[in-house]
């Protein structure tokens, strides 16, 4: 199953895409994508019900979040009520170690994203301050990367033995499905996604 793990809708402050239009785009362009995850900035959208869109388009639409830490931005998959109480998603300076630890404690998983990007990626922070315990998976293919950022992320993953995921980081409709993750199993819901990411049996793919 192929899932695009990193996308933003109009729920994010800089997102310009409606979720319905993402679905239409995938169908119209015949993208080999079975589903996607909405990772809104600094929030978890627990209210929106995308099941009618899933049914209409034959896609799996899951929800996560993108939070901001002292080591850069981090995707969180498997967000639940316990995790929402564990730290403030709106903070700009969450300790990465806290996000990793609390996500694991609550049955979720934290995945640093676009690590090669200046300031908001973890590579430069690792160089300056050293590695953080508990990181297992990072985003090695990000659809918005420029100038060697994905190569830096891949090098970081190889150096520390991290697994890599792919996500488009789409903010406009036509950018979904540029980077994806292929799983060896069906991903029916957020718990399946956490289990699969924890098992490490997946592959990051770039279609750029």
């Amino acid at each position, binding site marked *: 199953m192929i899932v695009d793990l990193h996308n933003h809708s109009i729920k994010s402050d800089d997102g*310009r895409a409606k979720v319905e*239009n993402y679905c239409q785009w995938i169908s*119209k362009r015949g993208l080999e994508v079975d589903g996607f995850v909405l990772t809104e900035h600094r929030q978890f959208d627990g209210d929106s019900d995308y099941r009618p869109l899933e049914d209409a388009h034959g896609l799996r639409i899951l929800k996560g979040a993108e939070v901001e830490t002292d080591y850069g931005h981090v995707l969180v998959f498997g967000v639940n009520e316990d995790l929402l109480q564990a730290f403030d998603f709106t903070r700009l300076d969450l300790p990465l170690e806290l996000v990793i630890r609390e996500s694991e404690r609550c049955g979720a998983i934290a995945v640093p994203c676009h690590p090669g990007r200046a300031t908001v990626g973890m590579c430069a922070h690792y160089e300056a301050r050293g590695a953080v315990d508990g990181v297992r998976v990072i985003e090695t293919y990000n659809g*918005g990367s*420029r100038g060697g950022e994905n190569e830096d992320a891949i090098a970081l993953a190889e150096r520390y033995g991290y697994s890599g995921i792919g996500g488009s980081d789409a*903010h*406009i*409709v*036509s*950018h979904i499905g540029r980077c994806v993750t292929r799983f060896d199993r069906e991903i029916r819901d957020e718990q399946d996604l956490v289990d699969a990411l924890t098992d490490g049996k997946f592959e990051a793919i770039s279609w750029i």
Partner: protein
Amino acid sequence: MSARSFDDVSFGDDLEEMKTDVSLDRIKRFTGAAGMTFERFTNHEAARKEGLPGAIVPGIMSQGILAAMIHRWAPGSTIVKIDTVFRAPLLVDSDPVCRGVVTDMNKADRTVEVDLTIVNEANETRVLGTATVRLEG
């Protein structure tokens, strides 16, 4: 050129790609006309001293170029809203390409939503955005 009708447009339609001239000479003409005096737009060395990789194309010029692409695709249309995000500097003397694609349609008010991007020679997105465009017919 004839106007483009709403009924002739479909979700997923690509606008014709448009190469654009962002040479130093043209940027100087633009900034002169706009009364912009910042050297980061017109002097590579001054831009580097500010920590930029070179002189950069003014954001309002990028937005204007994208608006021109829309009007070339749909003469006589009305740009109801245009919204751009500057993801990375678009460098002066680079060789960028502007792209657009229809990503939503609203029959009630005869408008379409267009995704907009400006990419550089490495196909990296430097500017992205959306526009709401009202079409004839």
